[in-house]
């Protein structure tokens, strides 16, 4: 077993950052009225969710 550096995986942090940004954009888009700006925010937010999971899945494959 090799503890420490081998398991260090910054990609997990990247995935979580993207995920949180997606959550914030989605909530902001949903909360404030209907308009093109809000639709863009919702789409970006959903994309952030998906991207976050993709990055985290990539981190799993490397771990």
């Amino acid at each position, binding site marked *: *077993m090799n*503890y*420490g550096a081998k398991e260090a995986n910054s990609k997990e942090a990247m*995935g979580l950052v993207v995920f949180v940004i997606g*959550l914030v954009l989605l909530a902001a888009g949903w*909360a404030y009225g209907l308009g093109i700006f809000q639709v863009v925010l919702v789409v970006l937010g959903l994309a952030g969710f998906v991207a976050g999971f993709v990055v985290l899945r990539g981190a799993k494959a490397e771990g």
Partner: protein
Amino acid sequence: MLRVHRSGGWLTQWWLIFLGLMLTGVVIAGCGRSPAADLKGDPGGIATGTKSDVVAQVAGGPQFVDKNGKPTGDVTQAAKDKDGNPLSEIDAAKDKEPLAYSLANMVGQNRIAVNIVWTLVAGFLVMFMQAGFALVETGFTRAKSAAHTMMMNFMIYGLGMLGYFIAGFAFQFGGIGGLATLGGGSALTSAGEVTLNIAGKPFGLIGTNGFFLSGGTYDVSIAVMFLFQMVFMDTAATIPTGAMAERWKFSAFCIFGFFCSTVTYPVFGNWGWGGGWLAQLGSNFGFGHGYADFAGSGVVHAVGGWMGLAGAIVLGPRIGKFNKDGSPNTIAGHNLTLAILGTFILAFGWFGFNPGSTLAASGSGALRIGLIAVNTMLAGAAASLSAMLYMWWTKGKPDPSMTVNGILAGLVAITAPSGFVSPVSSVIIGLIAGVLVCWAVWFFDNIAKVDDPVGAISVHGVCGTWGVIAVGLFADGTSNYGGVWNGVGGSVTGLFFGDAGQLVAQLIGAITCFVYVGGVSYIFFRVVDKLIGMRTPAETELGGLDIPEMGAYAYPVDFPGTGPVNPVPASNGATATSAASLA
């Protein structure tokens, strides 16, 4: 890699389709509502608490009536003139009696100030319960994963809080219709509740005001409500970290923190506390006062317990918990001292949890806070005694870990009834909870084969459900709270005091909690498991999660039980522990 106890299949797919349809419907129904965006809040705190918040005894004034039209005897309400206009005589005296007018405003603001200070202090106490949970869960688990267990309990505070700020609070309370005891909150207008109308009956599903505490919800009253409710949500969110300890991948836990605080908890919280359909069971169908959960045996504790159950099932048991024949092994925790200290902190914090749930200390029957505090103490004490005696009788020793879980079980069970029952009933509720938690731990170990390292599912899920049911049995009809609860006049009264309908409402709430929270959480954990993995590799679990997951030991490397000794020379002034994290 060792994989254990996995299950799933067609049921999961149907749940996913159901969940997707439900979410799509809610998004379409709620998108763009947010009426609070156009309303003004009171961020300066200068308009909150006025003469209209003065509570006075108005002889001969209109009385509240119960559902049968009988006067409840309650004459405590906002002062009104004989025509029912609020304090119009004081309005008329504004020029002739300016001092009286100012005094009325000051009395109103002082009343609201008392309520706000009380609610904030109670919220601070509940926040400190996070420390109690951290110590209890870490003490009941092994030293080799102590940093990981501590870190989960620590970070759920930040993760959960931000999720609740972003969307959770809006979903839970965004349509509650105002916060009378805190002097305002009108931006949480009931127009913000997404409601289904079936056969002429409204079914509140989810709120939509208060995202990011912005717009009209940038307001002093709403901020107090947010703080108090946020720490409640965090209490629920930290419960699964105990049930899923010692094998939960940290990144998956982080995703859970956001999901729990934005979806799982707030939606059920809306149904029970935010004016949703469970709270409307009384006004819609005559089931007592609707689902009545004073401080959260169901909304907080059962939600946490059932989330933990779903997670523990998806994760599977720790390596070594069950033998090949299915019989369970005891995996002892590493520090009973920590666990008992944490329990005392939790019991202390519960004095904020239950009495603080009045959201008031002045007017409208809020002085019952003294009784609520006593009920809380008594139930915890009774449950610790019954758990200790039960274990002593059946196993020959007064098992400290089960005694600790006993007091927590009593505190959890009295959380919903604390505002509605007598001290004698509290003791009975606690005595039952103390034995119930022992049976539940045995059941999950021996029958369900679910590995719950700290007993969180038994304490919070099972005894939380018992607390919800206990309201429907023991509520004695003496509480007031303004003479109305969930829109139904009169006092919450259980089966033993004459209202069988209340028990029906409680049973519906308890079953809904299990089905909704258990189902949604199970789907969520399965999806996360599929996408990024929920469980740490077997070699990580065997060696302890501290270095592989956290990069740091909780204790010095030569501390007994701190995983495989992997000494790292301390250099450059670094401690052995911190140096290990850099290795």
